[in-house]
């Protein structure tokens, strides 16, 4: 065992994984964590112990994108906002555009406009690009070869999602399951 560590030391593997995730601003990929782990240790159980240890604390361990990260507990947000610098929130149009791209990706600008029923403002697209939430994803092989848009890995991190599958299903979003629209009387 480590002779420099304090006597009350927790398991080496847990300390190591805690340190590397804690030190990083971005989620640490599972692969990286696995390579750090001593032979024979199980990453899942180490992570479970770590999560339990921080439960109810000021920071919590979450899975975001393809990795693990610490972030502050959500209920502390109001108090933290007074101290930490906060970027502007996304405007409604940008947020809706983001939702369209998230649900329909890869999607063209024309399709976004069709779904929202309004033309896409440059400022909304700029805001999403600047926040690294969306990215061009090639072209559709159709007349004019329109550019396609998709969400970025940062999108998952920003909203604390493990993958795009974590997005609620369309049918869950509509209050009632969308049946066939009835004809008007």
């Amino acid at each position: 065992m480590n002779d420099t560590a304090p006597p009350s030391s927790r398991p080496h593997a847990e300390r190591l994984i805690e340190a590397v995730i804690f030190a990083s601003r971005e989620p640490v990929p599972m692969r990286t964590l696995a390579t750090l782990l001593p032979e024979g240790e199980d990453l899942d159980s180490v992570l479970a112990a770590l999560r339990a240890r921080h439960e109810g604390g000021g920071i919590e361990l979450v899975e975001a994108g393809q990795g693990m990260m610490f972030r502050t507990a959500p209920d502390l947000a109001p108090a933290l906002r007074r101290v930490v610098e906060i970027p502007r929130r996304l405007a409604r149009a940008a947020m809706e555009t983001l939702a369209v791209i998230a649900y329909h990706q890869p999607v063209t600008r024309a399709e976004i406009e069709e779904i929202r029923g309004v033309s896409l403002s440059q400022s909304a697209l700029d805001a999403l690009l600047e926040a690294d939430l969306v990215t061009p994803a090639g072209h559709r092989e159709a007349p004019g070869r329109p550019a396609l848009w998709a969400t970025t890995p940062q999108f998952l991190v920003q909203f604390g999602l493990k993958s795009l599958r974590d997005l609620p299903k369309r049918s869950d979003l509509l209050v009632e399951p969308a049946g066939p629209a009835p004809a008007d009387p």
Partner: protein
Amino acid sequence: MPDSDAAPSPEPVEAFIVRFEGFEGPLDLLLELARGQKVDLANVSILALVEQYLAIVEGARRVRLELAADWLVMAAWLAWLKSRLLLPEDETAAEEGEIAADVLAARLQALEAIREGAAWLGARPQLGQDVFPRGAPEDFTEIDRSRLHVDLTSLLTAYLAARRRSGAKRQYRPKPMNFWSVQQALERLTRLLGATRDWTDLAGFLPPELPDSSEPPLARRAALSSTLLAGLELARDGQLALRQEQPFGPIQIRPGPEPEPDHE
């Protein structure tokens, strides 16, 4: 306009006109109107929506003359839809109306789903807004620059660059080209011809500095052609004769005029 009996009371219509610019386009307004029906979106009355929309756009035009084109395009399409729904001319028109109403309902549902999706995203704790990452990250990466990145190509490129640079500074000095001239061949042939009686290979009259084919072939060929030219010159003057037994065979010379009786 027969709007007062079909459309709801004019009171909410006035409120909509006031907030007209708050809507993000016709579809946004239609969705808001549909929500106002307080029913499941799947059971919304398209006809009621159409009439409300037309009433609002009509009201807005009374207040302001200019109205963005997409509002009017939607109004025209809804007016057409209304006619198909209310007084279809025949079965085909009625069917067209029903399909169009379904399309509109589906578009409203799609927009509603996106609205809910955006709301769901907006309600999540957002990194940098509600929850915060490590503010002062630590980097454990060490960069080792002790190794060299070199390859043979860069070495050769560097050598050429060095030579080219110094080469540009040197004065141009063409390499002297020492070829056996016709004049030299003429002198040598005249001198050697006296010691010759019989047919001799032309190559035997080449200068002694070209002993064998180890010399650059260019110099040897130049000497050979100069000697041949000299030989032709002397033959014209009748001082010697030339012959070649076969094409590309060795050319031979001997002193004296053209040997006419040779074949007889």
